[in-house]
């Protein structure tokens, strides 16, 4: 990571927008910023730290008041932002953090080929910045020399965390975690395959069982199909025999004969009834014929009498008397007593009626008799017809009965029943076979389903190959992990010793008489005497120790960052930006510290006061690429006399303080 420029506006004492361009060439890697107390050196250091991480150093106590404020101006500045342009892994980035009230906004842009910035989405900007420069690592690169390491005391300094953070152990540890995570993924996959293998085994058993059952079912199916077929053949034969036996036809003929006989009886009854009716009719007919004849005769007589002028009063009397005398009926049969009484009564009344009436009466009787005769005739014809029909039907039925009886044959009931029983048994056999076949069919469907579902596939072979591959990979990863852990454990202490050696090397360049001891167990370092006993230290000695430590970290990180395919790749190697690093060092040690710092990094930014810089000017100047001056501006006041401070740089005098402003601020002036 190399810093290119820093721009501030409304930040701490820096009201107007000001920009510092950092030097980052290999021959002149140093940027020097001069500033007296209160000019804003720490504020600039914090501008870089705040812009990249959102944090400030512990010494910037009033961190809630980061925005420029002055009563002369009438309050807060209208804007507050810090913009840092830097290069990281051959890409130019722009980080910009703004403050609006207490609300911060961070933007991060990546410069494209056209020179424009492509801004990372706001939700990911800080995350990506943290990837470039983790916040906890930033404090090792951007620090306040007088309050180094965020106020850690000597006894709290630990190589362990520093080494992990700066020297690439973090990525190595993350890689170990990633290996473990991938091993977990692989093991889960292996477990799945194992589970599938178990299931496959269970499937295979079910499949084998289904196949066996299907084979059995096929055998049984054939047996029962044959049984059904054989039974059906028997049934067909028996049915032919039974049909040939003619039993049903005989039975039917018997039934037909019974029906015909019944019909015959009915016809005979009808015939008998008709004959009886006809006989009665014949008698009635005779009586009627006699009565009619009598009436005709009587009427003829009366008619003749009348025509001749004779009107015998009682023309019937002689006839009646004659009949009585003869004792015979008009039909010639002897008179019955009853008939005699009737004739005697008629004889008494005869001749009492008027002849005309009698003739009329005779006519009416004759007419009635004729009507009745017609009626009788029809009835007679009816009887005759019935008799004829009945006789015809009887003849026909008798002929049918005769025919049926002639067809009837006798058969052996036992033999027939035996056939029927045999037929029933064969039908039962056939039906039972069909029931069995249906059941077998159902079972076959079920087992076929199992066979199809549980059919072992070649996945099992594929799974096995994959499982072997994954198990091999897990084991190889385990071997790699073990080797890496051993390497890292060893390298932590090796690195601690490397840092200690570098620090000892630095120490030997000074007039500090202490030794440096590193406790490999606790990874702590301290000044000790020649007997290894921890000794007290001055503020300057402590500052030297801290700067030497930072230098060593930076130096090792820089070397490791240049190694291709290394294990300990630093997460980031930042430039060293140090505020007031030489404050408590005497000039000799300050020069050494400067050399140490310059050697340890590709880019060094120093924020120095006049007194700290002047003794080092000769050693610093050849490496200076950029040089700036922080000029404090005071609001003019007629009542106070302010000290006029100046600084002479390369023979030219620059004011450090100005009094002609309406409000207090610091101007950044470029010298080089």
């Amino acid at each position, binding site marked *: 990571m190399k810093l290119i420029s820093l721009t501030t506006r409304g930040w701490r004492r820096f009201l107007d927008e000001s920009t510092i361009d950092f030097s980052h060439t290999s021959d002149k890697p140093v940027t020097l910023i001069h500033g007296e107390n209160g000019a804003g050196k720490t504020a600039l250091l914090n501008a870089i730290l705040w812009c990249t991480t959102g944090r400030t150093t512990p010494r910037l106590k009033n961190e809630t008041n980061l925005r420029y404020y002055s009563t002369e101006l009438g309050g807060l500045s209208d804007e507050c932002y810090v913009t840092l342009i830097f290069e990281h892994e051959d890409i130019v980035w722009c980080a910009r953090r703004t403050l609006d009230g207490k609300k911060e906004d961070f933007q991060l842009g990546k410069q494209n080929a056209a020179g424009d910035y492509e801004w990372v989405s706001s939700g990911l900007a800080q995350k990506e910045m943290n990837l470039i420069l983790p916040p906890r690592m930033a404090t090792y690169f951007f620090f306040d020399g007088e309050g180094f390491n965020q106020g850690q005391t000597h006894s709290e300094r630990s190589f362990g965390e520093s080494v992990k953070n700066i020297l690439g152990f973090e990525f190595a540890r993350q890689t170990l975690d990633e290996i473990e995570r991938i091993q977990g993924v692989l093991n889960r996959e292996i477990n799945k395959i194992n589970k599938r293998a178990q299931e496959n085994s269970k499937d295979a058993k079910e499949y084998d069982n289904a196949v066996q059952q299907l084979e059995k079912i096929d055998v049984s199916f054939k047996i029962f199909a044959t049984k059904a077929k054989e039974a059906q053949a028997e049934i067909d034969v028996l049915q032919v025999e039974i049909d040939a036996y003619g039993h049903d036809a005989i039975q039917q003929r018997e039934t037909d004969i019974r029906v015909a006989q019944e019909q015959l009886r009915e016809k005979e009854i009808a015939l008998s009834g008709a004959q009886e009716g006809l006989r009665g009719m014949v008698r009635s007919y005779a009586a009627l014929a006699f009565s009619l004849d009598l009436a005709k005769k009587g009427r003829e007589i009366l008619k003749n009498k009348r025509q001749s002028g004779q009107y015998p009063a009682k023309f019937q009397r002689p006839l009646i008397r004659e009949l009585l005398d003869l004792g015979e009926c008009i039909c010639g049969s002897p008179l019955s007593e009853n008939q005699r009484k009737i004739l005697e009564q008629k004889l008494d009344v005869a001749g009492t009626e008027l002849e005309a009436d009698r003739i009329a009466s005779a006519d009416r009787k004759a007419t009635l008799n004729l009507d009745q005769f017609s009626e009788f005739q029809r009835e007679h014809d009816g009887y005759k017809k019935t008799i004829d029909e009945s006789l015809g039907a009887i003849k026909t039925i008798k002929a049918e009965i005769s025919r049926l009886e002639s067809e009837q044959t006798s058969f052996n009931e036992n033999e027939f029943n035996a056939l029927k029983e045999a037929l029933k048994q064969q039908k039962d056999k056939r039906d039972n076979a069909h029931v069995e076949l249906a059941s077998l069919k159902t079972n076959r469907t079920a087992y076929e389903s199992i066979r199809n579902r549980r059919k072992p596939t070649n996945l099992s072979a594929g799974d096995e190959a994959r499982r072997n591959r994954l198990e091999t990979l897990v*084991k190889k990863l385990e071997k790699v992990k*073990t*080797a890496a852990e051993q390497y890292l454990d060893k390298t932590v202490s090796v690195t601690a010793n490397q840092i200690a*050696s570098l620090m000892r090397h630095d120490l030997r360049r000074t007039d500090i008489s202490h030794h440096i001891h590193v406790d490999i167990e606790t990874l702590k370092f301290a000044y000790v005497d020649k007997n290894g006993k921890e000794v007290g230290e001055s503020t300057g000695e402590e500052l030297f120790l801290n700067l030497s430590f930072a230098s060593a970290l930076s130096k090792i990180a820089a070397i490791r960052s240049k190694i291709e*395919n290394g294990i300990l790749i630093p997460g980031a190697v930042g430039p060293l930006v140090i505020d007031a690093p030489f404050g408590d060092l005497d000039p000799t040690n300050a020069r050494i510290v400067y050399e140490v710092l310059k050697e340890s990094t590709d880019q060094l930014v120093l924020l120095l006061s006049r007194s700290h810089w002047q003794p080092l000017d000769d050693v610093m100047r050849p490496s200076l690429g950029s040089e700036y001056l922080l000029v404090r501006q005071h609001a003019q006041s007629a009542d106070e006399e302010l000290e006029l401070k100046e600084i002479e740089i390369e023979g030219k005098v620059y004011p450090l303080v100005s009094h002609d402003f309406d409000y207090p601020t610091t101007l950044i002036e470029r010298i080089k």
Partner: protein
Amino acid sequence: MREEVELFTLEAAKQEQDEWSVELRAFAGMVGKVRRKYFGMSINDEQMEKLFEELVQDVDLGADDEVN
């Protein structure tokens, strides 16, 4: 610089790298992949598995640990 400091030069680090075992070389490759993932490259588990497998292909498990 004194001799002991020169041990921490780039050349010394590369020399140490040349002496790495197959496992450490594989691990170094993995660090590179994890670092790329850490810096935003999208690598899913399946891809990481393949990358790791390629990197460990020279790692010898020995007869006892071989999975057949």
